[in-house]
């Protein structure tokens, strides 16, 4: 076996996973009410297609994807839409428009839910289309529509399907439990995605700290051609599960700055997404549930829960034994990249792989520690998996120097948070860089609009000049003709003299 290529830097962190991996997955009963955020985590919103008062069944489409970065949303319970309004959500500002469905206690299925027949003979392009309709989105934490990624990868002729089972972030273990319990589903999903992509090879990458998951996958793969479908074991180094870093670890080639893994010939999908595809193929059911890790020192019995989308997080925390001790923060995601939530009334979204009820100790006792000046120690540069110089980028950010931000690769930051983690001065680097990327996006958009405005202003000026010239010409013609007439008249007068 050749030496394993690896991405630069990274760091082995305390995993904190054993708390929740000991228990089997808890199946949560359907809640009385679901709160479905129109932004399921991809940063772009779906458009509601039901009105308040509408009756919906399980699997009824409630919000449609208007653009390629949002995924369709389906009702996970049967009942009545009681509100479409702004509620507490895992969005910037803590609020977002949600569809609220009150359950009627029945299990009425929507007529559209039927097993997908003749899957093997389905045209790959048609398959991508159906995956879009089924609202299949990346369950690894980004909730990006799988169909969009598939279409881009097909267009660029990607030949490798890389299933991401690395799950590198501390605390999160929902993919681990999924691979252990449903390895066959993951493999079936992999086969379907491979068919949709037309890829010859599929690799399922798992970190070496999940021996049970690796064994389960190997057992499920028994009999398959190793060249077409195989498991790759990668070292447990954070952020191994970040798309670009995983591509480098498995293929040895780096995804160039500014291009997507699909353009480098790789389609990356989470193992949970593959399992969701398999479920859809088997039952025809769109994505309406997911497995989520409910953990942290602030809950009594950390475990993994399979729950319907829109389930209030409070119900998930109850399933994990309820709050205990002194929870400091409720976080959607892990301790490195997770975002703090303002309330546990937020509904579960496709993007939430983990609910971390963190105490002060879980967060490294960061409470009360003050940010201090950068001492140029360079620790952040030593761990940055994207190969950036965070200390330099930070200076550019403070100086609001957009050119330097671009030059130092603000857009290549993957927001892993390692620079924050190692910074001895407790500088919130990752969030500064997030703000910097937003500043750059705004500058780009402003520049685009300014250029368009300048162009149409110049066109209008040209048009007005041409109109003025034409008017002048017409005026001159009239005048000169009038002059000739006068001369002629004068000539006649002179003639009679």
């Amino acid at each position: 076996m050749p030496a394993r290529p690896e991405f630069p830097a990274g760091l082995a962190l305390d995993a904190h996973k054993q708390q929740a991996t000991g228990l089997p997955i808890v199946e949560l009963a359907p809640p009385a009410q679901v709160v479905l955020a129109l932004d399921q985590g991809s940063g772009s919103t779906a458009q509601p297609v039901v009105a308040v008062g509408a009756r919906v069944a399980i699997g009824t489409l409630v919000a449609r994807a208007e653009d390629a970065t949002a995924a369709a949303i389906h009702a996970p319970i049967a009942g009545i839409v009681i509100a479409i309004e702004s509620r507490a959500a895992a969005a910037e500002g803590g609020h977002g428009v949600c569809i609220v469905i009150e359950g009627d206690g029945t299990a009425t299925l929507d007529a559209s839910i039927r097993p997908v027949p003749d899957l093997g003979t389905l045209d790959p392009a048609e398959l991508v289309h159906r995956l879009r309709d089924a609202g299949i989105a990346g369950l690894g934490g980004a909730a990006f529509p799988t169909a969009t990624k598939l279409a881009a990868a097909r267009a660029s002729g990607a030949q490798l399907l890389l299933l991401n089972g690395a799950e590198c972030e501390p605390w999160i273990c929902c993919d681990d439990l999924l691979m252990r319990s449903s390895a066959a589903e993951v493999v079936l999903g992999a086969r379907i995605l491979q068919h949709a992509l037309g890829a010859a090879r599929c690799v399922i990458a798992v970190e070496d700290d999940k021996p049970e998951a690796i064994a389960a996958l190997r057992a499920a793969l028994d009999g398959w051609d190793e060249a077409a479908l195989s498991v790759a074991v990668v070292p447990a180094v954070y952020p191994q599960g970040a798309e670009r870093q995983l591509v480098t670890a498995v293929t040895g080639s780096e995804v160039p700055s500014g291009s997507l893994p699909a353009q480098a010939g790789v389609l990356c999908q989470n193992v949970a997404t593959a399992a969701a595809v398999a479920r859809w193929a088997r039952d025809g059911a769109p994505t309406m549930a997911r497995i989520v890790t409910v953990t942290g020192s602030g809950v009594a019995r950390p475990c993994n829960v399979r729950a319907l989308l829109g389930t209030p997080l409070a119900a998930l925390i109850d399933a994990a034994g309820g709050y205990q001790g002194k929870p400091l923060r409720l976080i959607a995601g892990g301790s490195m990249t997770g975002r703090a939530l303002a309330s546990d009334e937020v509904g579960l979204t496709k993007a939430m792989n983990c609910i971390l009820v963190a105490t002060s100790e879980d967060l490294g006792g960061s409470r009360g520690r003050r940010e201090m000046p950068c001492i140029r120690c360079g620790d952040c540069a030593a761990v940055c998996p994207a190969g950036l110089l965070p200390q330099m980028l930070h200076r550019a950010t403070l100086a609001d120097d957009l050119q330097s931000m671009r030059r130092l690769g603000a857009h290549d930051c993957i927001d892993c948070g390692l620079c924050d983690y190692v910074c001895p001065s407790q500088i919130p680097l990752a969030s500064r860089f997030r703000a910097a990327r937003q500043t750059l996006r705004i500058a780009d958009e402003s520049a685009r609009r300014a250029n368009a405005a300048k162009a149409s202003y110049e066109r209008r000026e040209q048009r007005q000049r041409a109109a003025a010239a034409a008017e002048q010409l017409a005026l001159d013609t009239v005048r000169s003709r009038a002059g000739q007439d006068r001369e002629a008249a004068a000539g006649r007068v002179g003639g009679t003299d």
Partner: protein
Amino acid sequence: MNPQAIGAAVAVAAVLATVIGLALGWAAARLVPDADPLVARIDALLPQTQCGQCQFPGCRPYALAIARGEADIDRCPPGGDATARALAALLDRPARPANPAYGVSKLAQVAWIDEERCIGCARCLPACPVDAIVGAARQTHTVIADQCTGCELCLPPCPVDCIELRPAPALLAGRYSMHRAA
């Protein structure tokens, strides 16, 4: 003297003259420098709202006036302090904030026409400096939000006051200046 040598010399001179003449002609037509590179560089720092608050009929005329030394660098409210600072840096003049006498910096905005109230008079069409209003006489008008700079020049001509300014699209809303010197 050898008449052949004379002929050759004349021929060489003729060929050289033709080639050089063509090259010079091409260069004169294609390699002309911009009318005034300074005006273009000043113009590039202006927000292109074409709002006329600087008392010039658009961003380029203002840029021209700055380049000629006829106008100060602090007259652009949409660009605000950031633009004044960028202009100062470009022209190597002392930095100064935008002069509030010409107007105050506002949140990024776009015009919106209430189609219920629009009477289709077409008076706002020629007022728009960037052709962002679509419409014809006796037809309801509408604003192409993506092209609108929020200059407010369409407001005075409207006889029924059916145009209002709304926050710009999500990415730009909440920002004072639409433009930043990149």
